[in-house]
């Protein structure tokens, strides 16, 4: 039994949540649906840890679906980069589901709870599948599984605020344009090379720099994924979707969806197309780099003036995506490693913040910043979580945000771009403004006199504080995250994805 699980860990991380979704729907009972979802999430999480431990030393795992050898068959291929993302996604699912169980009681009609879990698990499946697969077309299929279920999850916020519907519609239109661009790009590279396996693609593309089909394929793929990851000027769908989605969904999306899209861009840039291509370095220099810097300033600046706290956090997410893109645009192994560290760190920070804000909305019923006045005394634990999360967004020592900013600063200095390090510090100062706005209201403003607000229930506090503790723990003890990211970055840079892989799950097969 154990050996079956070990041999097939790569497929089980995707298969278990995929199976739990239709089962949750068929049972139709919210308790059963919840148990199925949490059980499969925990199982996926444990398997993701197992996979991370296997690839931590820099080895690459390959799993052949149905025993069909790649490049003809579909392959799941795991190295340190996607193992880290798998870990983030599954950990967030484990943290958010118990929270969702309580929080959706006030947001979604009880008869729809089982359907909520089914959609949530489909979204989770899609994100895991996008991350683990080594087949380019498979990325598109899983991307659409996760996107379609995400549109539904966002629209579920409509019972509280009908603006969730128009936000979900906007997201659907832009997300579909992004995915279709992506699939056009895949079509063009298939046309040029005749294969869809990522390793096979990279071998054949290596000599095709001058090919116009390959160039336009690259453009379509980067812009398509750019829409999904809300790269600065393409972020229009993000604030609306995060603001009006149910709290648990906002937390899960903010922590995972854009991160997975960033991973896909990195994978295509470094492992499928060769980073040595002139047009690719131009994209980094003339598109990613300026837009990352604009995002860091503009989105943080917009966040300062928001009256809705979820919208404030959403704009802050756009700014934080800027930091991740900046790390990639520095075009060095340390820069890429900084991006990957920030991927993990921002996921736990933003996850914790959205959960804390969700708990306030659960207790007070209002997402307005002004209505948070004086809650520091009434909801001490939730407020403390917001403070820690806020400090991490700024990058104060002792939180994961500091680790990210530190490695990013080092990476910028290493390539000799000291003005960029100055900009990183300056843009963090804008984060101080919007975080201070929250802290001031929570602790220094007087509460409304007739306010009956009490601390959030334990089922909301435990997942929130779980993530807050992770924020602090990896802030002091960053060895694990930095090590895995360094390993992932150096393997991405040296084309380690294509090296001889350990083949999993051959036992007992003809």
């Amino acid at each position, binding site marked *: 039994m154990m050996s079956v699980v070990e041999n097939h860990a790569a497929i089980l991380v995707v298969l278990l949540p995929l199976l739990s979704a239709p089962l949750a729907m068929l049972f139709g009972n919210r308790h059963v649906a919840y148990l199925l979802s949490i059980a499969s999430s925990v199982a996926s999480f444990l398997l993701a840890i197992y996979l991370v431990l296997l690839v931590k030393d820099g080895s690459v795992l390959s799993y052949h679906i149905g025993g069909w050898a790649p490049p003809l068959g579909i392959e799941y291929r795991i190295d340190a980069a996607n193992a880290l993302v798998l870990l983030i996604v599954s950990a967030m699912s484990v943290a958010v589901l118990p929270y969702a169980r309580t929080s959706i009681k006030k947001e979604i009609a009880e008869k729809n709870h089982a359907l909520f879990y089914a959609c949530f698990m489909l979204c989770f499946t899609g994100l895991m599948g996008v991350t683990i697969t080594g087949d380019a*077309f498979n990325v*598109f*299929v899983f991307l*659409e599984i996760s996107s*379609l279920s995400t*549109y*539904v999850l966002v*629209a579920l916020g*409509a019972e509280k605020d*009908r*603006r969730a*519907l*128009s936000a*979900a*519609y906007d997201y*659907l*239109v832009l997300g*579909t*344009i992004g*995915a*279709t661009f992506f*699939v*056009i790009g895949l*079509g063009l590279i*298939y*046309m040029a090379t005749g294969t*869809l396996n990522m390793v096979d693609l990279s071998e054949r593309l290596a000599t095709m720099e001058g090919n116009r089909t390959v160039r336009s394929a690259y453009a379509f793929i980067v812009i398509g994924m750019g829409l999904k990851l809300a790269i600065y000027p393409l972020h229009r769908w993000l604030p609306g979707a995060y603001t009006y989605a149910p709290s648990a969904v906002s937390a899960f999306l903010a922590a995972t969806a854009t991160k997975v899209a960033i991973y896909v861009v990195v994978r295509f840039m470094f492992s499928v197309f060769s980073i040595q291509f002139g047009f690719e370095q131009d994209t980094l220099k003339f598109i990613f780099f300026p837009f990352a810097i604009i995002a860091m300033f503009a989105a943080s600046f917009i966040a300062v003036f928001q*009256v809705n706290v979820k919208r404030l956090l959403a704009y802050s997410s756009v700014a934080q995506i800027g930091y991740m893109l900046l790390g990639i645009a520095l075009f060095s192994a340390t820069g890429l490693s900084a991006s990957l560290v920030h991927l993990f760190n921002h996921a736990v920070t933003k996850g914790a913040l959205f959960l804390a804000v969700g708990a306030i909305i659960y207790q007070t019923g209002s997402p*307005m910043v*002004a209505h948070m006045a004086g809650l520091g005394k009434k909801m001490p634990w939730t407020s403390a979580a917001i403070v820690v999360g806020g400090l991490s967004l700024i990058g104060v020592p002792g939180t994961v945000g500091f680790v990210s900013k530190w490695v990013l600063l080092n990476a910028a200095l290493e390539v000799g771009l000291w003005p960029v390090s100055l900009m990183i510090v300056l843009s963090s100062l804008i984060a101080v403004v919007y975080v201070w706005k929250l802290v001031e209201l929570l602790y220094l403003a007087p509460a*409304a006199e007739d306010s009956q607000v009490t601390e959030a229930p334990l089922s909301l506090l435990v997942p929130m504080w779980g993530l807050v503790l992770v924020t602090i723990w990896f802030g002091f003890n960053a060895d694990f995250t930095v090590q895995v990211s360094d390993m992932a970055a150096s393997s991405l840079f040296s084309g380690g994805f294509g090296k001889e892989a350990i083949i999993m799950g051959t036992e007992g097969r003809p």
Partner: protein
Amino acid sequence: MTFNFDPQFILGHLNYWLFVILMLTGLYIVVARGNLLKKIVGLNIFQVAVFMLYISMGKVAGGTAPILTGNPNEVYSNPLPHVLILTAIVVGIATTSLGLALIVRINESYGTIEEDEILELDHQKSQAELDSLAKEASDKS
């Protein structure tokens, strides 16, 4: 790189020209139309154009359908792009139906499916929220 005008090149790639025209038409409708339903139609045209790109690239000149005929020298079209696009067609249908379902819900709660009217209603609601916040603040002081 120089560009030589070659009518044979243009005619020989007729499918691809049609793909480009259809794709841009669809994208234009999505961006330019205010009616949510028309946007979905535009999105559909946009996606269908991609199906055409894939199907064209799988075609081998003079090839038959990729089925066993008993003749080992049979020339047949590449089936893989066709299979891939089956998946994309399913995705397209799911997107369309979800989009239409959202439009039904939007029509129920807003009473309109014109984008500018919905934006106006959303804007009014945000303004009302701001006004009530300002009123609370002035009540306090």
